Structures are given as C-alpha cells and as structure tokens.
C-alpha cells in the first residue's frame, strides 16, 4: 500500500469546494510535485494531507507504516518569523518535538539528530547564528533540516522557493532531489514553477480546482496540458 492515497477526495474552504476529484497515490521514494496556478487549491490540499482539514468528500488514507504525524512539513514563512530571535540549532531541534510526546525535554539522541541534519544540509557552521540574520536560502535549508528532524519518511514542502533568487532556487531544488535519492525520503512539493518541477520530480499532480493530471513526469510533458503549461520544454531538449 502507498504512503498516501486519495480516493475521490475533495476539500472545501468555508463551505466552498476548493479542490475536488482527487485520485492519486504517493508511494515510498516518490517525488511528487503538485503544480497549478494561484488559487487552484494547492494550499487546501496541503492542509488536507497534513490532516489539518478533513476531506469534504471521499477519503485520504495513509498506509505503508506512515502515521499521520510523521510528515515533515516545510510551511511558507510567516511575517512573524522575520524578526524572531532564535538560533539555527533551536529551530532544527524543534523538529523533534512531536516525537517527545509529553516528555518535557529533548534527549541526547534528539540533539544528535538535529546536529546531523544541520550537517547534512551544509548549515552546521551556522548553528549558533540567529535565524533572522540568515539569507533566504540559508533559512530554507534550516527549515528543511527541521523537517528531516521530524521524519525520515515523507516531507511536504509548500512553495519552498518563494522569495529566493534563481541561483538559490536551483540549489534548493538540487538539494531536495538529493534528499529524495540519497536518503530515500519521499517528497511532496507544492510549486507553481512547473518547468523545474517536471525536471526534478518523478510524478506530477496538476490542479485547477480539480485534478487535471496525475502521472509520471515524462507522461506529463507528453500530455497536452503538460505541453501547454511547461512551455514546450520538450522541443528545447
């Protein structure tokens, strides 16, 4: 069974269906990219996958040993975080919180995992630095480290490249691909950057308030909708 399976699922926002007709599955090791324009229901789907919003119709099933709170989430940044006094290490360590349950303090193992993930993402020399003083790309790496502290199974990234310049964006995409390939972490990424998505992802889910396409990235580029949205990247190759 797949990690996440949606069966005819629909999610509503304040009573109005934001996205419907969802039929897709995410299996271990997949790299699914959810694409679509603004307001196409991507954020609502994210909430649904995280279990913060119950499906309005149909079902969302988790399986293959994935518990609903084992999804490492990289949310879009909020305004409050821009001036939040916190060290990089504190941010990464907070990813271990869910695994603590009601125990009040972090164990030595939690600290080791946090250090290990900072190391893996190449930001371990920043561990004592203040989070708000980092560049956008460095901040995203720290948040990725935190997501990896929460889980080794599945991470869900909500527009991770928002606000990054093109060079940092490409670097971040390469890093995410590496996490997917080398660590075997399943990735679900929400993006409106369709071209990069098709380049890195194994599967594409295209939303337009309903499911327009779900399948492998290669099939997507060959399909009509893929050709229209990815701007004919096939011919260029």
């Amino acid at each position, binding site marked *: 069974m797949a990690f996440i399976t949606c069966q005819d699922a629909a999610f509503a926002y304040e009573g109005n269906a934001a996205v419907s007709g969802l039929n897709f599955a995410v299996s271990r090791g997949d790299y699914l990219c959810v694409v679509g324009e603004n307001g196409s229901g991507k954020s609502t789907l994210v909430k649904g996958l995280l279990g913060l919003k119950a499906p309005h119709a149909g079902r969302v099933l988790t399986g293959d040993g994935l518990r609903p709170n084992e999804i490492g989430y990289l949310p879009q940044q909020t305004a409050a975080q821009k001036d939040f006094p916190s060290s990089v290490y*504190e941010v990464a360590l907070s990813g271990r919180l869910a695994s603590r349950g009601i125990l009040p303090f972090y164990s030595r193992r939690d600290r080791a995992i946090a250090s290990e993930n900072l190391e893996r993402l190449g930001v371990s020399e920043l561990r004592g630095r203040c989070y708000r003083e980092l560049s956008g790309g460095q901040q995203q790496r720290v948040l990725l480290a935190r997501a990896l502290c929460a889980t080794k199974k599945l991470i869900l990234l909500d527009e991770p490249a928002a606000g990054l310049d093109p060079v940092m964006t490409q670097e971040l995409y390469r890093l995410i691909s590496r996490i997917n390939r080398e660590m075997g972490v399943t990735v679900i990424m929400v993006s409106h950057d369709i071209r990069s998505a098709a380049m890195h992802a194994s599967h594409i889910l295209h939303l337009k308030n309903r499911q327009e396409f779900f399948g492998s990235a290669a099939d997507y580029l060959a399909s009509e909708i893929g050709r229209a949205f990815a701007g004919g990247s096939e011919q260029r190759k």
Partner: protein
Amino acid sequence: MAMLDTLLEMFSYQFLVRAVVVGALVSLCAALLGVSLVLKRYSMIGDGLSHVGFGALAVATAMNAAPLTVSIPVVVLAAFLLLRVSENSKIKGDAAIALISTSSLAIGVIVISLTTGMNTDVCNYLFGSILAMSKSDVRLSIALAAVVLALFVLCYNKIYAVTFDENFAKATGVKTGAWNMLIAFLTAITIVLGMRMMGALLISSLIIFPALTSMRLCKTFKSVAVCSAAVSVACFFAGVTVSYVKATPTGASVVAANIAAFLLFWAASAAKGRTGRTANIRQSVNP
C-alpha cells in the same frame, strides 16, 4: 551605605515587603509569558485583559466580594475569548480587542460612580497602589507564580515550537490550540495578580517591555527568555526603590525603569551594530 540604609528602612515596612514579593513574582511571570505573546503578535491581548480586569474589580467592589475571586474567572474567560477572536473572526483581532477593553473600562467606571462614587479608589485601580497587597494576596501570588514558572520550564520546548511556527507544530501533531489556551490562561492570572499594584492602565507594560528590551541584544529564544526575566525583576526593584525614595507612584516608576532599560539596550544594540558595520567595511577595504 546610604543606599543600604534606605533599603533596610524600606523593608522594615510589612506592606512594602509584601508588595515587593508579589511584584517581583508577577514581573518574573509576566516577562516569561511576554516573550511568547510579543513574538506571536499578541501584545495587545495583555492590554485588553487588564481593562477587563478593571471592570471586574469595579464590579467586585460594588458587590462587596473578594476582588480576586471575581476578577480571576472573568479575566480568564476574556483571555480565551480574545484568543479565539484574534485567531478567526469577522472583526479583525486588534479592533476586537479595542472593543472589549474600552467596553469593560466604561462598565467599570459606571459601576464605580454608581456605588462608591468617583474617588481615590478609581485612581488606585487605574494607576495602582502599593498598599493594595494583603497577606492572602501574597500566599496566592506565591502559589500561582510557582505554577506559572513550573509550567513554563516544563513546557518550554512546546511554547517555543508554538511561538516560532504554529503551522509546523500543528502538522507534527502538537495541540497548538491547547498550548495557546495555556499561555492565555497564565497571562490572565498574572495580570489579575499584578493589576492592583501596577494599575490597570500600566500592567501590560510588564508583559511587553522586558521581551522587547532583551530582543535588542539577545539572539536566541532561550537567552531572550532568561534576559527578559532578569531585566523585568531588576526594573521592578529599581522602580519600587525610586518610588519609595522620591514618593512617586509605584506602577509608573516601574514602567519608567523599564523605559530606561529599553533605551539602554537599544543604544547598546545600535552601538554594536555600528562597530559591526565599520569592522565589515574595514575588512572589505583591506582584506
């Protein structure tokens, strides 16, 4: 030596010892909670709650009830309400808080003028009085301060997570709603305890100032929390001493001490920023 004599003389008064004990504990709790409230953009909730507390105090006096037994439940209720309102509602959070705080201020003033009349009591409620602390208040404050401190230390990691990134915490299964409630509950109790000494109009400064002051210089969440607690208690002592020596109002003197600390930290961070920049420029000129 003169300083020590003043302090000894000060602490020979029973009522002052009581006020200092309660005040120091309240300052400590308010500073710790304030770090979370200020960072979550909930600063105005503290202000709103103190006005609700004023209304509750006025009603309690009119009914001849013990002030704390009426105001604690009312303010706790208001805290939950304000939290809900600022999270999701048709009226925007800040407007809703202004609505509730001015409403309770108005009701309080009407109740007071109908019962005891507008006298020095009103002034004491609004701006605080050092004489307000009774023996039972001291016992209650010690107990409640112990609860606030214990909860803060035990739940420190959860409070950090909920403050820094509520969405992430929620997604990983942390009950963020419950933690927000807890913070609001502790804030309400702290405000009610400190209100009669600091005054309904001034108590929220104990929540807001220490966090903002320490954020000028401290870069990690833990250091901000520890520094806020230290600054807050130090400012309280300074304020009370000045108020004793110069016969100024206690609440206002404590706020003045907080203003001084804020300016000091701000100047220090500005100076630090400038030397940091010059060092950078020097480095780039001759690498």
